[in-house]
């Protein structure tokens, strides 16, 4: 599916996308949170970008861990430790490989999701990034097991993530800042689910 070089390229593209959608993500967070999600993510990925040149000789696990560390130490807020933990866990799951296939990706993604659940004490249906990531993971896993085609699988994943983002509009937030709004959070899309979906889309279009 991808090697270290390609991975670095994908991370660069994710960063570019996050910078582009900074205001959009912030605007979403303004409605049901404190209006900083885009700012936080953009700050974090800017830091990640600075590290990209150091990554060239590293294995995939180390690269993902370094991304996670950079996010943890620059994003702050809720999304910092969550995305940070996700990338670090993903890196640990893959280990010192220089190539990763679809199975590796799915293992890494599973570990990332577990990391978020543990750190966030959260689960599906709480109007968080998990509502994009978990359905995406499930759809990708199913598709990949059936066809052994990662491109097809990531397409399914993106589709499911997009549905997940839509789904967040219909539910009350019970985790994160949006939970303070109670009923008032209904009708609005979760910024973290949106940023997670954006990342999956970048992966899809980069392959």
């Amino acid at each position, binding site marked *: 599916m991808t090697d270290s070089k390609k991975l670095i390229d994908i991370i660069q593209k994710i960063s570019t996308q996050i910078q582009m959608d900074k205001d959009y993500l*912030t605007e979403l967070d*303004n409605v049901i*949170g*404190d*209006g*900083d999600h885009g*700012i*936080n993510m953009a*700050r974090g990925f800017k830091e990640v970008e600075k590290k990209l040149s150091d990554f060239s000789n590293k294995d995939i696990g180390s690269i993902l861990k370094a991304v996670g560390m950079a996010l*943890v*130490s*620059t*994003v*702050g*807020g*809720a*999304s*910092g*430790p*969550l995305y940070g933990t996700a990338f670090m866990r993903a890196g640990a799951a893959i280990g010192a490989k220089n190539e990763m296939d679809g199975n590796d990706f799915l293992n890494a993604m599973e570990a990332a999701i577990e990391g978020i659940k543990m*750190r*966030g004490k959260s689960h599906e249906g709480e109007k968080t990034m998990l509502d994009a990531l978990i359905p995406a993971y499930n759809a990708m896993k199913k598709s990949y097991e059936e066809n052994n085609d990662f491109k097809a699988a990531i397409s399914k994943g993106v589709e499911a993530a997009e549905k997940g983002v839509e789904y967040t509009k219909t539910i009350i937030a*019970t*985790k*994160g*800042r949006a*939970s*303070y*709004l*109670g009923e*008032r959070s209904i009708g609005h899309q979760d910024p973290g689910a949106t940023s997670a979906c954006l990342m999956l889309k970048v992966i899809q279009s980069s392959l």
Partner: protein
Amino acid sequence: MKKLINCVENVEREMIEGLVKAYPNHVRKLDCGNVVVRAHKKEGKVALISGGGSGHEPAHGGYVGEGMLDCAVAGAVFTSPTPDQIYEGIKAIATDKGVLMVVKNYTGDVMNFEMAAEMAQADGIDVQYVVTNDDVAVENSLYTTGRRGVAGTVFVHKIAGAKAETGADLNEVHRVAQKVVDNVRSMGMALTPCTVPAAGKPGFELNEDEMEIGIGIHGEPGTHKEKIKSADEIAVTLLDKILADIDYNDKEVAVMINGSGATPLMELFIVNNKVHDYLTEKGIKIYKTFVGNYMTSLEMAGFSISLLRLDDELKELLDAKADTPAFKE
């Protein structure tokens, strides 16, 4: 956005540097980031660390000093600081008596402080923490993140800080801090929103005749909008919600009328005039009152009321000496 700043990227650092330059006898900044510690480390006591996003000044850097905090870590505006910064703070202040973290109950704050604690514990530092959650605006429910930590947190700094100063051990300081958390309740409102510098526009909108009730401290909308009422009516609305939450009957209390940043002191005193009378009517005895900007939200106009139920132990610790840039007793 009208602000006295230089560039949005640097507001936190320049703010912290301006603070330590103003009060060099009280505080200094760590080189590693926006971490404020006492100018002179005090050994032989539990070290207290708090922090959170910036924009709440004087919280938390202004409360570093004798009788209160040993360290405050400042994140980006309204954004929890990162674990590595908190970890540096813990290492700088840790004594053999251990470290108590005072964390406001926000997902981000809790997670980042927890990660820092894990890092410090791996170094063999004894770390405990309390999570403040005094905001009664948010319904407490098993199915949510729980209530927010707001201005009542300053009472935790003051009282746990005083306890730590006595040389008490970590369990004791933790117990007292938790006692304050258990006995303090707050509720706030806003007349105007505020603007995160990096965002460049207000967190919500309000008409000329509207106010936001049940506001937090991060510029987010409150529980609902209402038509503006008189100061007395607003004070009673907030107080009723607080008084319904825990039993204040025949209790002695400390009162904090906390300005959100752009509220003239005149208006806070007018609010206190009613708060005092209303509590007195209800037979609640006011032991001490604090009126001012203690936990702000940038240039938001509005205020919160905090009521802390007191016993003899808390009274003594509340009255104990404090000498910090923003709180002196």
